[in-house]
């Protein structure tokens, strides 16, 4: 018997997406999220004490799950190249350190990254659809995405139109996501298990204001076909938080139970220390389940996190802390 996830039995996602009003009814009918309760649960999970082998496993996993990110107006080709080098070999002195999952850049830097990552397993993720605000005509969003895909992006990190979402126009958000899903479906030869470009949908939870909205936006993106739901652009505070990520993990867990389809979560922005990363992994482990402890199903979007994880990993393997000068700068 499939696991039950929603108070309403026999949800058919076909019915849900038949009209904008059906979609709105479904999203409004999702069980609420109690703010006090979810924050208490996240805080309790954050007290888990991860030591020795369990810590080393978590640190390596955190590296393998990292989307090493540079999203600055001032990004130079040289900076992207050095980021790509670091992505493949985070610690030049230690070959046992795994490569990260992906580098994440703006569309016009995808070409540079593609050259630098030729022949490696490190994927190229590109933000698109008028990142970070999403305030552009649909034609521009599609062109933005298509450009990144043509340049060779393996993964697209799109932003949703928060204005449309907050005004209740879920149909419009759905249609926009769907349009990008179709562009991604129409690709091949990418470094993903199925060769197709994968889509991460950024909810920008810092602008959604309530956990109820986070839950609705998560389901909306999942129903529309997102491979991964992502917390934040990193350009808005607050970015990723533990309780927001927990709510999103509940959504992918329940979506998997309902449809049999695995989807992922990406926590992006504000995660800077290995200790933070381990807390997120505990939440993944005890909310969605051990099956999500895989770079295909959980990612960290971060720039400085990797350096702290490398420091902690060195401490765990060599018994002493390194000076920060031993960690290559980005």
């Amino acid at each position: 018997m499939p696991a039950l996830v929603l108070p309403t039995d026999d949800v058919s996602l076909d019915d849900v997406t038949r009209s904008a009003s059906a979609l709105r009814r479904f999203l409004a009918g999702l069980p609420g999220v109690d703010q006090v309760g979810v924050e208490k649960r996240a805080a309790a999970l954050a007290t888990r004490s991860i030591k020795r082998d369990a810590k080393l496993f978590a640190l390596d996993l955190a590296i393998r799950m990292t989307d090493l990110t540079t999203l600055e107006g001032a990004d130079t080709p040289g900076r992207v190249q050095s980021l790509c080098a670091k992505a493949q070999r985070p610690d030049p002195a230690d070959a046992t350190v795994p490569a990260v999952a992906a580098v994440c850049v703006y569309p016009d830097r995808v070409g540079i990254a593609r050259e630098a990552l030729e022949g490696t397993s490190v994927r190229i993720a590109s933000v698109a659809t008028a990142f970070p605000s999403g305030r552009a005509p649909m034609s521009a969003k599609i062109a933005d995405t298509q450009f990144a895909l043509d340049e060779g992006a393996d993964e697209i990190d799109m932003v949703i139109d928060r204005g449309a979402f907050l005004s209740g126009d879920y149909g419009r958000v759905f249609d926009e996501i769907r349009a990008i899903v179709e562009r991604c479906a129409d690709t091949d030869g990418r470094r993903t298990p199925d060769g197709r470009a994968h889509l991460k949908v950024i909810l920008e939870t810092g602008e959604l204001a309530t956990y109820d909205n986070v839950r609705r936006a998560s389901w909306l993106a999942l129903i529309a076909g997102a491979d991964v739901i992502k917390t934040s652009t990193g350009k808005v505070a607050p970015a990723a938080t533990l309780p927001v990520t927990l709510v999103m993990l509940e959504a992918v867990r329940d979506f998997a139970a309902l449809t049999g389809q695995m989807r992922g979560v990406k926590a992006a922005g504000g995660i800077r220390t290995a200790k933070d990363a381990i807390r997120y992994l505990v939440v993944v482990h005890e909310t969605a389940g051990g099956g999500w402890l895989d770079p295909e199903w959980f990612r960290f979007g971060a720039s400085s996190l990797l350096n702290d994880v490398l420091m902690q990993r060195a401490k765990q393997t060599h018994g002493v802390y390194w000076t920060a000068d031993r960690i290559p700068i980005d």
Partner: protein
Amino acid sequence: MTDPLLGAGTETTVPDVLTPTWEYAPAPEARDLVTIRSRSGLFIDGAFHDAADGGTFATISPATEEHLADVALAGDADVDRAVAAARRAFASWSRLPGRERGKYLFRIARLLQERAREFAVLESLDNGKPIRETRDVDVPTAAAHFFYHAGWADKLAWAGLGSHPRPLGVAGQVIPWNFPLLMLAWKVAPALACGNTVVLKPAETTPLTALLFADICQQADLPPGVVNILTGAGETGATLVGHEGIDKVAFTGSTAVGKQIQRRLAGTGRRLTLELGGKAANIVFEDAAMDQAIEGIVDGIFFNQGHVCCAGSRLIVQESVHDLVVDKLTRRLATLRLGDPLDKNTDIGAINSRAQLDRITELADAGEAEGAERWELDCPVPDHGFWFRPTVFTGVSPASRIAQEEIFGPVLSVMTFRTPDEAVAKANNTPYGLSAGIWTEKGSRILAMADRLRAGVVWANTFNRFDPTSPFGGYKESGFGREGGRHGLAAYLTTKAA
């Protein structure tokens, strides 16, 4: 908007999400944070003494059955001596300005915080509860009670109990083993703040943190005799509560013993407050924030191994979401970690004693025999010590023993309701009335239900939250009198002229 799943998801199957793939390494708290004296005396008149007849008894770790210490067994002569010391101390303690009494209580509160890790480790060892709970709940909440009541000590005239409320005298206090330090704090802090002196008897199976608290009284330079601690068994408690030299009895424990005490004190003029058993209803409506309701159910019945008088041991769930709740609950329970109480990742510790384990086992077996469907956590259980797997009964009839009797263990009985009236009727259908929980996103329903539930504490969208500012106590066979808040002060004050 057709073909909703176009291009979505890879051809993967849903993994087995329940099998842990990431084993947390053991993370034990350092046991040597606390030094356990192999032999402890009775704390009378500011100093430790052996029992007059030299009697002792052993206290063990329920997680390993390891012998922890021998403590003195107080007899009648020791009770006499302690009550006399408390009486002597009362003369000066009760005349101390409230501000000065408050200083002692603040000092005790700060010392509890400073020595929090020591208390947490010792409580886990002696009681069997997880260090996560002693560290995050028991010890900080105990300190909070002292801070709160320290603040009241010089403001009693403004507590709404008359302009010159007076202390009662010597309080005889008997506390249970489920929250040894916290129950001590609930009893001692208000008594002292109001100007009373106390003779306290901790539970037989958990005397050690009370003795460490005696250390703190010495460290705080509390005047001798203000706090006296007599370790012992049921006999000691019976002698204490029946002693003619005391003015007030405060008891937390079983309803059966509470009734004996009330009979004993009838007609003596001595004041009494009782905080007894419970069989709380945790009511889940179909519109509840479901994932948080599941957490609340877990907190309600599996916190402290279910050794909680206000535990949400009866889950009363709207029938339309019964299967959903049970499904989500059992999946959540599968993540609970049972084992070494000193491991920082342990969620479920040991049952406090063999006697309690036997009682839980008997009632759970009765539930099965009565036809309820039994589910229990599939987890290994240590070879030594007293352990009981978290258990959920579905299809429980309101007439069955597991729906009526207090189990005081990690056992949840699930029943259903159709209408709010039926929920109220089922929730109130118990001799007890200590606490209840309501889970709904509808505010008006919370208020309407809270009005009709006969329980001293009603939690809405949370459970088992304790705060010194909030009065706690029961209806019906759950006892009378309140602890905490302004109401709690009334149990230790009189407005009569001296």
